[in-house]
């Protein structure tokens, strides 16, 4: 809760809407260029002048706060056609003022946008607000709507249940049977909100571009895409209800009052090593055993039973990096050279859009030693193109990335994902 108030109080906004409606009734269609000025009279003489001004009906002024006494501000709505005259008058008489509302139409537009955002549950994925962060229910509804709108292309698979019995939903994009697959997951660490938000955008992007973008169409005509948007739903719900900084799962740990396991230290690749913690009260707690977390086990089971995944992209934030195995050992991955070159290409694509700088390399050299991570396991399962993304930013906002960066982040990341998918398709193995 912020006690230092927003510049425009809600009372003011209410007045503004009323005024807008009032004037609209009298045939005015737009408030472009109209302003609201706050005038500070410094003596009685100036108050007198302002009273005279208010009597000039042809100016069409509307005093929200009438000139009464020099100790009180005078707020006046000035239509565009009168602005010049009013400003000259104030300057000539050396009456101080400042512009409270620079452009009334802009404010009304903003307000309209805000109202649309919070109006009701979106009725379709075209109605959905991609520029805002959503809660779990909204995201699950989005998935169902997407499937309903694109039932020839998209289906929802429930690969398991979280500890608190929430469904682990995966969207499957498929144009035919028995295809090899490409996997993306977002939100495995629940506080990394730009990732789930980007996942939603990716889902919509895929259905929009299939049949329109030749590269994506070609990919989908040969591969299935699997997208798990909320990979850690219990953690995600907790970031909304209790602790915005929650990272782990929400499974209690026996013998400890501390809850949760780091789902990105729980995989059976270098499990138990120094790049993870044995203390349940830490953020990188590995868990009692590999795959002990149902959220992780569900993916493990899915990957094994699918048997034909060819790329696996696990999406995190923050620090603007594209990483490949290994995190648990300094030994280079067998495919290091190819993975490095593909990372270079993907990052170059990403950067081309908004000039966002990314670094890339193996996990252990670039970011830190991390044991039991997702992509080390998937790589050792034979999924060659296994990458971890760290999205925006580099620490200024960190996990609390402003919502107006969701779409730019998703758009640029998509270019990198496309580069990796295209390479996968062109280099079957």
């Amino acid at each position: 809760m912020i006690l230092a108030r927003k510049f425009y109080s809600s009372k003011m906004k209410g007045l503004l809407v009323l005024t807008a409606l009032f004037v609209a009734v009298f045939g005015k269609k737009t408030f472009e260029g109209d302003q609201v000025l706050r005038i500070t009279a410094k003596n009685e003489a100036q108050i007198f002048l302002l009273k005279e001004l208010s009597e000039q009906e042809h100016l069409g002024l509307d005093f929200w706060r009438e000139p009464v006494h020099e100790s009180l501000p005078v707020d006046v709505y000035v239509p565009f056609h009168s602005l010049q005259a009013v400003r000259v008058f104030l300057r000539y008489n050396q009456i101080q003022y400042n512009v409270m509302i620079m452009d009334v139409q802009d404010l009304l537009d903003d307000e309209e946008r805000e109202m649309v955002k919070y109006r009701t549950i979106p009725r379709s994925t075209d109605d959905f607000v991609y520029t805002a962060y959503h809660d779990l229910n909204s995201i699950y509804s989005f998935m169902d709507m997407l499937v309903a709108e694109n039932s020839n292309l998209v289906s929802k698979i429930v690969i398991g249940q979280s500890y608190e019995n929430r469904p682990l939903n995966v969207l499957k994009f498929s144009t035919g049977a028995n295809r090899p697959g490409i996997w993306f997951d977002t939100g495995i660490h629940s506080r990394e909100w730009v990732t789930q938000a980007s996942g939603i955008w990716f889902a919509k992007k895929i259905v929009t571009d299939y049949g329109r973008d030749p590269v994506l169409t070609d990919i989908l005509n040969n591969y299935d895409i699997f997208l798990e948007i909320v990979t850690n739903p219990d953690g995600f719900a907790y970031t909304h209800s209790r602790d915005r900084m929650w990272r782990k799962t929400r499974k209690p740990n026996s013998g400890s009052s501390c809850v949760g396991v780091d789902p990105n230290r729980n995989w059976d690749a270098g499990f138990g090593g120094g790049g993870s913690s044995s203390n349940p009260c830490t953020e990188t707690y590995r868990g009692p055993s590999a795959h002990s977390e149902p959220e992780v086990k569900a993916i493990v089971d899915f990957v094994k039973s699918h048997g034909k995944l060819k790329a696996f992209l696990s999406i995190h934030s923050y620090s603007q990096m594209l990483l490949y195995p290994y995190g648990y050992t300094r030994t280079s991955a067998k495919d290091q050279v190819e993975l490095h070159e593909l990372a270079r290409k993907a990052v170059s694509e990403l950067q081309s859009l908004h000039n966002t700088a990314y670094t890339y390399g193996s996990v252990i050299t670039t970011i830190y030693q991390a044991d039991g991570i997702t992509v080390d396991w998937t790589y050792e399962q034979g999924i060659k193109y296994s990458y971890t993304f760290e999205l925006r930013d580099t620490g200024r906002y960190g996990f609390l990335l402003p919502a107006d960066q969701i779409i730019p982040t998703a758009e640029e990341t998509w270019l990198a994902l496309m580069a990796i998918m295209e390479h996968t398709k062109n280099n079957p193995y």
Partner: protein
Amino acid sequence: MASTGDLEPTHYPARRAAQVALHYLNTHHGSPFRVFGLQQVHKASAEDVAAGGRKYKLDFSVTDWGSGSAGPALRCSADVLFPRTERHSAPKVELHCEALQQINSTAQEDDAFYQKYISPDSTVSARDIPDSFGNMSEEMQPFWRLARVAASFIMLRESSENTEFNMAKVASITQQESSEEQLMLEFVVLLHDFPSQEIVQWKLLASWSPDRGVRVLQTEWQPRCPHATKPPN
């Protein structure tokens, strides 16, 4: 794992040392309208030193977050020494940034901000800057920057080769009674450490004026119990 000699600039050992230099830069030159962020490390090397410890030599660029993406990058060089002592002690930094004096002065904004809030009636109080959605009002931005600069004192002091700190959020800001013509602000900040992924909470008391800059008078580590089953009461 020791790495001595030339370092890969995009890898973490160089980056962590550069972040320490950034914290140092902000403690000296940060203000309500100026906070520096790391743009890129150009070159880096490290060597063990006779007294015990490792010294990093860095060549890097920084940008001013206050001026957005429009701002120019400043080129800096720094020596960062991480001492090897039984108990942790703060790294030592020597820093030189070219053209530091030439970047656009924020004196006007500093003064306006100072005049506005130094009045005895001023009692700014706020929580969650930014909020869960990354929102921050324009009025709060200079306070966020002050918190970030004050937090830099702590981050600098607490840094080692095994940490990489950022400020995750300002949990609260409470203006205290001005003293000796300094704005007095009590902050509770959440710091994020990359390697451990831990969120660490600190309460601190800082002063600021356009003349004296930011000073941190008191710091207090505060326990958080996020991992526990019940939230603390």
